[in-house]
């Protein structure tokens, strides 16, 4: 048994997710990510069952673990009650704890998510916040979102929201005491430490790649990881 396997085994999702895999490939057949990416959840269980340190390390540093969409369709079909989606969550957690995530193009994207979703949770108390969803970063949102963005307060008011208001309701301002409680929850449970690790390992990687990285949303490294797509991820026609 390897150290990395032991570390994974500490995660309750890993213990729940891996019973015994018979390699039937049903998870891969139903997986939306396997259809789009060069990706097979079956192969991940295969590697984990070897408990081989070097193969697990390679997996933790690879693009592979970042292809899953966590839809959990695999859970409905495994004849052995495995949950490949839960194993992915355990692998991604460990990859970030050890800093391995910066070794792959898809893994490096964690900084972009931390600086958007993570920031908004702590700052606003919401995972998403309308003034932050910028039309130029979201062309797919279309002209209606552009119009909404321009008239956000009036549109929210028309639709019955309490945007930035006190009291209850849609998009109310979350009271300061509540934001303080969230922050303390993140402090005592390891949430802040996870986020700091994402920053710290990313900073090292940016320096290694010779790219500028500051604290904002628009430094070179941040823009690069948010948009970089090498095109090497999808299944090739000949497969």
């Amino acid at each position: 048994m390897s150290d990395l396997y032991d570390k994974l085994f500490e995660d309750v999702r890993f213990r729940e997710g891996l019973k015994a895999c018979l390699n039937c490939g049903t998870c891969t057949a139903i997986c939306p990510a396997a259809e789009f990416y060069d990706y097979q959840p079956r192969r991940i269980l295969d590697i984990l069952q070897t408990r081989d340190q070097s193969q697990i390390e390679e997996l933790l540093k690879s693009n592979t673990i970042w292809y899953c969409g966590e839809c959990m369709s695999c859970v409905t079909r495994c004849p052995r009650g495995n949950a490949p989606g839960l194993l992915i969550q355990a692998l991604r957690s460990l990859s970030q704890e050890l800093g391995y995530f910066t070794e792959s193009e898809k893994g490096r994207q964690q900084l972009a998510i931390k600086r958007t979703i993570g920031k908004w949770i702590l700052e606003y108390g919401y995972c998403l916040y309308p003034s932050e969803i910028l039309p130029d970063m979201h062309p797919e949102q279309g002209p209606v979102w552009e119009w909404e963005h321009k008239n956000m307060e009036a549109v929210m008011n028309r639709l019955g929201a309490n945007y930035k208001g006190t009291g209850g309701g849609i998009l109310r301002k979350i009271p300061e005491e509540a934001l303080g409680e969230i922050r303390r929850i993140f402090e005592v449970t390891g949430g802040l430490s996870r986020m700091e690790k994402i920053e710290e390992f990313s900073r090292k990687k940016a320096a290694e790649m010779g790219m500028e990285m500051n604290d904002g949303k628009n430094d070179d490294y941040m823009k690069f990881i948010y948009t970089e797509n090498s095109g090497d991820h999808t299944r090739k026609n000949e497969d």
Partner: protein
Amino acid sequence: MKIEGKQNIWKEYQKEIAEDHFFYVRSCVRQNFFPGSEKTFLRILQYELKKDLFENPSHTTCSGIGYHTDIIPFETSMTMVARQFALMTEAGYENLVTSCITSFGLYSEVLETWHHFPELEEKTRQFLRKATGREFKKPANVSHASDIIFKFRKEIAEKSKYSLVNKDTGKPLRVVEHIGCHYSKMFPSKGIGGAEYPYVLVGMIEDWGGEVIDYPERRHCCGFGFRQYLVQANRGFSISCSKKKFDSMEPYKPDMILTNCPGCPMFLDRWQYAISEMEGKTYGENNQGIPVLTYEELAGLVLGYNPWDLGLQVHQVPAEPLLDKMGIPYDPEMKFRGADGQDLGKPEAPTTLKFYAKEV
């Protein structure tokens, strides 16, 4: 076969849904993109069905999108969930109703985890105490808001002013239903009909006069995939999943798509627009799209609410073709007006997708 036997077989596909006295927790995605749906849920529950529902302004995100993009450890999310439970307990409620499917899945996952690993519940209690000084009781019932509308679908039908019937032909409208993955794929017993026979939306469609379309990719994910949409470089995954569904449903000529997850209606709506811009392809007749509605929006239409009070104006794929078929009157002039009728301008029309049903 005896009836009792049959009932027994289907028992595992049924679900206990609380009758009244709900503690409501909101959805981040819906508040941003479909605020009218949450407004309508409360309007139906409080004013049509006379139910008691309570919202504590101090409740926050459950952190679910952070959890499923893996920037947040499980311990943190468990404690965030425990805090919502504490607010519910303090308010004297025990029936939790969530507006979000990601939240619903996370609440279910946390409760299941605590059931199998009681030491993690204890650890979470200690975390919550240390961070906030709060204590909590676990909810007696966790329902998704679509479960509640399902439970009272017949009462809504009795009060209905419109139905899912084409007013010109008298035939039932053909509806694609799309269930959010985290509603029943992770914990089938938590959803009506489980993962195999999801009935939560079908029940509404049938009782409101429509006909359900079965098509090959009916249970395929919409393509949110959390990081697969949130990071721009990954959005090819997201649009491809939606496109696969559109291509699969197109031959069945759906009049609309009905959804129960916050994200799915946004993706199924926006990706139709993006595909029309990228490839000039539209999925409805005459360059129209297929209107995508939330279950509250549809319930609201059935009850005769003003479409612009429901928020149908913030859809990128216009809902007017559906309104026309159902015979629901609407004022195109008022579509993009503010609360007091003020002029807010109008969104630009897309290149291909027909946007203004009646030129104004």
